[in-house]
């Protein structure tokens, strides 16, 4: 168990977006969170990565309570994430976009930048090398020098992966990584996620594409109206009555 939430709750005014969720993220596995639109999946992610502070409950990372830590501190512990929309700087090259990903593992400051110290040169190279390494991992070496604005949607998703991987994470949270791309490309990204797990990186993702999730995920949690309604392997989820009702509507007989 790498991460764990205990009775995690988030309220926005009168709305409870995430309610009393206990969840564990297994190390070295692909963990998935599914649920209808507005079920609180993204909010749950934001709670785990520190973007939101929970109203109640706790988040543990390797047994350490990280509930109230800011996102940058959590990232330094080895938790990376991607967003649904990409935030690339379109005028810069792909490589330039990814270099900053390793910034958190460096310590050079303004002084080093202005006086071009030895540490500056060492760390600039370190970040560049890291960016090349992760771009190679996500198979984007061929577009490395292209402006980020000119690559395809699928390639942009891969850049977002690369950026997350450049932080040297132990766990990567992927928020709808395959939204808006075609089935063939989805498969490519799925195998990339498997490749990440083989490298020893734990994956946790939000996804809507059921077929892909059922095949890919080792463990699935289903959220509905902010509450956990099921948790288990894909077979368990597929045969779960509550899940079927949530997706097909209350009165439907499966």
């Amino acid at each position, binding site marked *: 168990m790498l991460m764990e939430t205990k009775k995690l709750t988030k309220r926005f005014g009168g709305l409870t977006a995430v309610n009393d969720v206990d969840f564990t993220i297994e190390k070295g596995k692909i963990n998935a969170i599914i649920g209808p639109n507005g079920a609180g999946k993204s909010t749950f992610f934001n709670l785990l990565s520190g973007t939101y502070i929970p109203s109640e409950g706790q988040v543990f990372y390797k047994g350490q309570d990280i509930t109230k830590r800011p996102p940058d501190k959590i*990232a330094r512990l080895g938790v*990376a994430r991607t967003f649904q929309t990409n935030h690339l700087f379109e005028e810069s090259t792909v490589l330039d976009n990814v270099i*900053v990903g390793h910034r*958190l593992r460096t310590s*050079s400051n*303004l002084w080093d*930048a202005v006086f071009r110290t030895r540490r500056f040169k060492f760390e600039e190279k370190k970040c560049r090398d890291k960016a090349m390494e992760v771009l190679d991992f996500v198979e984007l070496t061929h577009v490395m020098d292209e402006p980020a604005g000119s690559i395809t949607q699928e390639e942009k998703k891969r850049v977002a992966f690369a*950026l997350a991987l450049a932080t040297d994470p132990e766990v990567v949270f992927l928020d709808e990584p395959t939204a808006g791309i075609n089935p063939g490309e989805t498969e490519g990204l799925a195998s990339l996620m498997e490749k990440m797990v083989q490298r020893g990186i734990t994956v946790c993702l939000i996804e809507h594409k059921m077929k892909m999730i059922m095949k890919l995920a080792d463990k699935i949690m289903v959220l509905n109206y902010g509450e956990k309604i099921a948790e288990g392997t894909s077979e368990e989820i597929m045969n779960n009555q509550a899940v079927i009702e949530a997706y097909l509507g209350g009165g439907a007989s499966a």
Partner: protein
Amino acid sequence: MVSLLRNRGWLIGFIAAGVLFPFVLPNAYFLHILTLAFIWMIAVYGLNLLAGYTGYLSLAHAGFFAVGAYGLGLLTVKTGMNYWIALLLACVITSALGLVVGLVSLRTREHFFAIYTLCVGYIIYLIIDKWDSLTGGVRGLIGIPEPSNIGPISFQTPISQYYLIFAFLLLTILIMYRIVHSLTGRTFIAIRNSEDLARTLGISTMKNKLMVFVLTAFFAGLAGALYASFIRFIGPDIGYITIIFDLLTYLLVGGIGTLAGPIVGTFLIVALSQSLQFLQDYRMLIFGPLLTLLIIFYPRGIVGAYHDWRLKRKDAQRTRPQKEQEYFETEEETEKQVKEG
């Protein structure tokens, strides 16, 4: 390496032009205007690092400019301090004020940040204007000394002042260039692109934003202090809101978030407003629409537009063979159609 030289070509050209100008056109009036423009460029470079590279549009920087000017003026006139120590202290005072203002203002974003800093700038102006016993109020501060000698070098003549301020400008550009092309600069740009993403990449956004804010306050203070010792008379007007909008215009016309932008924009607008002086305030009738059009069609200014054009040309060169083929195909098709028809 060749591309690096090509990218820096503008800078080499600028240095050469700046060094040679007094010899080519030994005109006291032009020299004066150009020296003033260099001072504005220093302030615009500071603003550019914050507004262009970090994404925070500060409107307090005319205030910081005035604080730097009055800092130097008061220290030299009232305490008789050595010029160079006073210059350093003026910059330190402005940076310290920047730190305090930054700590509060950087909790806000976007419009709220702009509005807040606008208020801060105006308050600084009011304090200078009303604190008669210290600043001399509307009467201003007179008798600010010129830079004192460094060893055998004196700064009494306009030409020596010109070169001194030019040297400060080049130093500013060097520092900016090195910051922008470093991990620190990449960090700022990451904050501009998306603060949320930057934070999840492990970047402490508050610490970095504060660093930029203090740094830009420093450069505004430096520009102000140089202004005070160049003009040798200052009034509260130099902290007024119109100054910040002048600086902003220079930055927007030249190209926000580009390294050459501050030079291009400042030079162009200063030259234009000087040559259109016979129109008096009607100049604004020309500037207003021109600026609006520029922002609509080239949001990243002249330098930004140039970059885009070069990028497009490079793209076109790469895809040209393909396009030519397409062209032939369509031609054949039309031929076919004609025959069939």
